[in-house]
């Protein structure tokens, strides 16, 4: 069964992309709201809110990775498993990028015209599909691999943060 999954280095690179994108959004939102919270919450409470956010990020990022690995296990190896670092990264960027664009559009134009919300995400999906098609070309592959490899460094910060703060959240809920 394990043979159906990609090698650990490729998984790590894809997970780094997922975690950085998901946490990047959350941390941006956190900083955006921080000025308000500083007026109404104390630092301990703000830390708790951040802990919940990191816990949610851990769960979200694991779900995205699990879905990609599931697809990997189901599809023939040459479609995704053998090029997981490249195509897994593109799929993750496409998926999470669409959510970012959708929610950003909602921030800008609201829900008064729902169809307008989906223009950006659809355009991004087309772009992702195009990149998937041309992902066999060496320059594209190199660029994607270089990027995902560089993002692994963030896992040295994010993973301890995820684990410590998730542990803190579980402790608060249980105790």
């Amino acid at each position: 069964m394990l043979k159906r999954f990609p090698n650990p280095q490729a998984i790590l690179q894809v997970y780094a992309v997922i975690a950085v994108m998901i946490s990047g959004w959350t941390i941006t939102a956190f900083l955006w709201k921080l000025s308000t919270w500083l007026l109404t919450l104390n630092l301990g409470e703000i830390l708790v809110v951040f802990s919940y956010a990191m816990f949610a990020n851990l769960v979200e990022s694991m779900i995205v990775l699990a879905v990609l690995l599931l697809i990997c296990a189901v599809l023939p190896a040459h479609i995704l498993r053998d090029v997981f670092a490249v195509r897994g990264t593109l799929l993750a960027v496409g998926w999470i990028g669409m959510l970012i664009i959708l929610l950003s559009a909602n921030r800008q134009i609201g829900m008064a015209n729902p169809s307008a919300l989906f223009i950006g995400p659809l355009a991004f999906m087309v772009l992702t599909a195009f990149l998937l098609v041309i992902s066999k070309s060496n320059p594209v592959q190199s660029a994607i691999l270089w990027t995902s490899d560089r993002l692994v460094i963030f896992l040295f910060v994010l993973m301890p943060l995820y684990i410590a703060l998730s542990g803190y959240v579980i402790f608060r809920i249980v105790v």
Partner: protein
Amino acid sequence: MSKISRRDFLKVYATLMASATFSRASKFLSSVQPANSNKPNILIFVFDAMSARHLSLYGYARRTTPNLQKFADRASVYHRHYSVGNFTTTGTASMLTGLNPWTHRAITYRGMIDHTLTDRNLFHLMGDEYTRLAFTQNLWADILLSQFGKDLDYHLPCDTYSNSRFSLFEPDDIPGDRTLAYYAFQDFLNLRTIEPHPFPGSLSIGTLELAKALTASEDNPSIDYPRGLPTVYEFSYENAVVFAELGRLIQSSLQSPPFLGYFHLWSPHGPYNAQRDFVGIFQDHLEVPSKPPHSLSGSNYPEARLRDFRREYDEYIANVDAEFGQLMNGLEDAGVLQNSYVIVTSDHGELFERGELSHASALMYAPVTHIPLLISAPRQQTRSDFHSSTSNLDLLPTLLQIADKEIPDWIEGKLLPGFGGIEDNSRGIFPLVAKDNAAFRPIEHATFTLIKGPYELFFFTGYPGHPDGFELYNLEEDPDELQDLFRKDITAASQMKDELLEAVHAANRNYQTK
């Protein structure tokens, strides 16, 4: 060691769940053992956003509250009772702590009281002699109840009697960390569709919420509720169900006196979704004085639209009044109120004038601060009316008096007339809205109010693009607040202004030196 089969796992899981359930149930049952006490039960009903100015009980032209009028026949009725806040957080915090807003500091949206003051609340002061139960459908009031959580024997989730919930996560989902779970999920991770530019902290939760909002039926209509079900932001409910279930809960709880029940119901807060029988009952031409939009009005609704909202609100009050009447009839028929005080009040009122709809704006005119207060004592047979100004800070010391408890010095309210207090027309009451001011800083961006004798003075300060200013009204001669007397009645204006500014400076000075 043998392997654990799926069946074994399920057995263990079921045993653990049953143990946990039994443990919680036995804890509650043990807390409701009959106590050896003659102390009276206390039932507090808070109807959110119920303005005294819209109740026929207080002389409103539309017959909105026949059942409250019947209830008032055997109660103490306070005719000039004011909330010191114009939205839930401030109004409720002051009522439950007996403190002015500038002291407890729950002045911002979804705010909390100063952490050093969390022991200063009704439930703590009543002590564990009472079985203390609290239920609110208002999520902002629930934040405050969560702050008082260790003083509650039972704290029901907000959506206990709801039909459906629209939110993926609610604070009640994490009972072990209720207050901060609310902040984390509702204020940060969730998409708050009611905000103009929502920025959910979680991509996936935000997207799911957006998908839900885009596919949800807008009005949530039902046969019994033509305008849609009564709705709190996160869930919908039916008043008939809520009141019926509360009746059952109260009946069973009163078997274990002394009992303190706090029931803070969302209705008649907007949306004004009255039950079918009450829609269209006020097809009259109620004369409402014209009041031009105020420069601090946030919404600038045309008067015709405000008249429509007013009618829907009045219908909704009539609906709530009918449900309350049924609840009281049921409790009286069951004979469980013989040793019970029943209190009816609100956290703030509602405004349909000067371009403003609803509450929580910069405007503090009487319809949004003037709230009902009725207290029915055990076996009370006659009605008592009190016409001096009282404040919702006064409820806490009065309840302590009723329960024969010591009244601490720090309480800023006074005993209500009829319960040891006197009718004091020289007393000042200080409603305040400072929702955009930093909670833990001097209050410099706010509307301060002083209500004293027949007068009401407003001090608008710190609003961008709006110069600081005062307005003065005589509520006895001009209850609709049409004639600004600030530059006409110089003597009253000067005295009121001095007293209000002194209070403002004292409040800020006290906080800064704390």
